[in-house]
């Protein structure tokens, strides 16, 4: 399958930007949800909470209900998130130590964790911490976050920069977790993982299922309606 997809163009004209992927994922976060956003791209999701909904954000290093970054020059470097960026707290925040923080993670208390990915397999396996055996390995909280949250979402480009599929039948990069991902938001589609299969829920209206399948490294299944993936210009 990867042989077919290598000839594909990523077609920037008909894909979502990262901010649009983040916006789409944000629409599925319910009011009052407790959520952890992975460092980097997933942090964008916080910007697009739908009006009237208030999610509560958890960061591994011991804060619940943190908020926006402070103004430049106003940073308190004891008040940072897992990405070591300065943050603020909202009324109702709490501080706690790392064991309590990961009790929240591992103990199933988070409603949603949203992470980036190098590869996601149709059985829910995730690879997102290293791409090979060279250099200095660093895992942080990724392996913990994929276990425990009630739902673990991935947001990602549908294919790599050189056109290889990121949704695959089996991960070839080192695993972060086994059978842990429940939903994937890509630049082209929204896909659930159920019973070891990719189930297509939404796709860009401008492309066919066949075109999407050609960009995907494992079989896409259809189980009920496939909606149009519609996002605002951002």
């Amino acid at each position, binding site marked *: 399958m990867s042989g077919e997809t290598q000839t594909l163009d990523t077609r920037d004209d008909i894909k979502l930007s990262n901010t649009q992927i983040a916006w789409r994922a944000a629409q599925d976060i319910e*009011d*009052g949800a*407790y959520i952890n956003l992975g460092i980097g791209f997933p942090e964008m999701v916080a910007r697009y909470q739908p009006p009237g909904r*208030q999610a*509560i954000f*958890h960061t591994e290093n011991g*804060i*619940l*209900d943190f908020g926006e970054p402070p103004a430049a020059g106003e940073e308190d470097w004891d008040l940072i998130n897992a990405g070591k960026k300065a943050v603020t*707290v*909202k*009324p*109702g*925040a*709490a*501080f*706690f130590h790392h*064991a*309590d923080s*990961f*009790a*929240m*993670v*591992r*103990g*199933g*208390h*988070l409603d949603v964790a949203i992470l980036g990915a190098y590869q996601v397999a149709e059985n829910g396996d995730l690879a997102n911490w290293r791409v090979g055996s060279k250099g200095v390995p660093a895992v942080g909280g990724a392996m913990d976050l994929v*276990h*425990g949250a009630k739902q673990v979402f991935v947001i990602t480009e549908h294919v790599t920069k050189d056109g290889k599929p990121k949704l695959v039948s089996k991960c070839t990069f080192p695993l972060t977790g086994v059978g842990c991902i429940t939903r994937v938001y890509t630049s082209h589609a929204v896909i659930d993982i159920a019973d070891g299969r990719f189930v297509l829920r939404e796709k860009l209206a401008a492309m066919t299922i066949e075109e999407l399948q050609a960009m995907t490294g494992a079989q896409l299944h259809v189980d009920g309606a496939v909606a149009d993936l519609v996002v605002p210009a951002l």
Partner: protein
Amino acid sequence: MDKTIRTLTDAVSKVTDGATVMIGGFGGSGAPIELIHALIDNGPKNLTVINNNAGNGRIGIAAMIDAGMIAKMICSFPRSSDPRAFTDTYLAGKIELELVPQGTLAERIRAGGAGIPAFYTPTGYGTELAEGKPVAEFDGRQFVQERWLKADFAIVKAHLGDTHGNLTYRKAGRNFNPLMCMAATTTIAQVSQIVEPGDIDPEHVITPGIFVDAVVEVSNPQQEEELIRAGVAYAGGMSA
């Protein structure tokens, strides 16, 4: 988001027959007497109850036993100054007992809340309370494998609670309460005062709101010890 529930009866209304219920408190300290009595009024049966003790006198957990609501107690010390309710029921073979060393009980509940399905402890090794449990050697010493404890509901007593569910406790009334908040699917807290988010300093929150589902205000909570000394028996129907 507002986790406030207006009445005690509503707060415990989802506890139904056959549920496993953790109840906070060590003796009467930190015991959610008003929530327990509301639960008695609602009357679910065949409950498994997890508490350090097994009731005292004719109130609280003892009154639940008297009302025939408890099928099984998981506890460390089913004795009290007036243990009749449990003793009589147990000796009559009408209630099951799982006796757990106190520190193991605390750690099993914490493990349930922290997603740790099993752990090893030196406690109980070589005693009858470890019979049938896996044993392993680490660093030349023997340890017993213990499993996590989880529950459908936790019923706890806190001091301050904000509408997000952040809690503080009073003195040794903390005991099992913060652990049980973590280990239950649904946690219901009675608090002496409901405050606004931000009124509890984030440095002073003992139970973060993520572990709490419902908060109900009981502004002058009863102390089990004082009720026992006054010879009170819970007559039912007083929680509404």
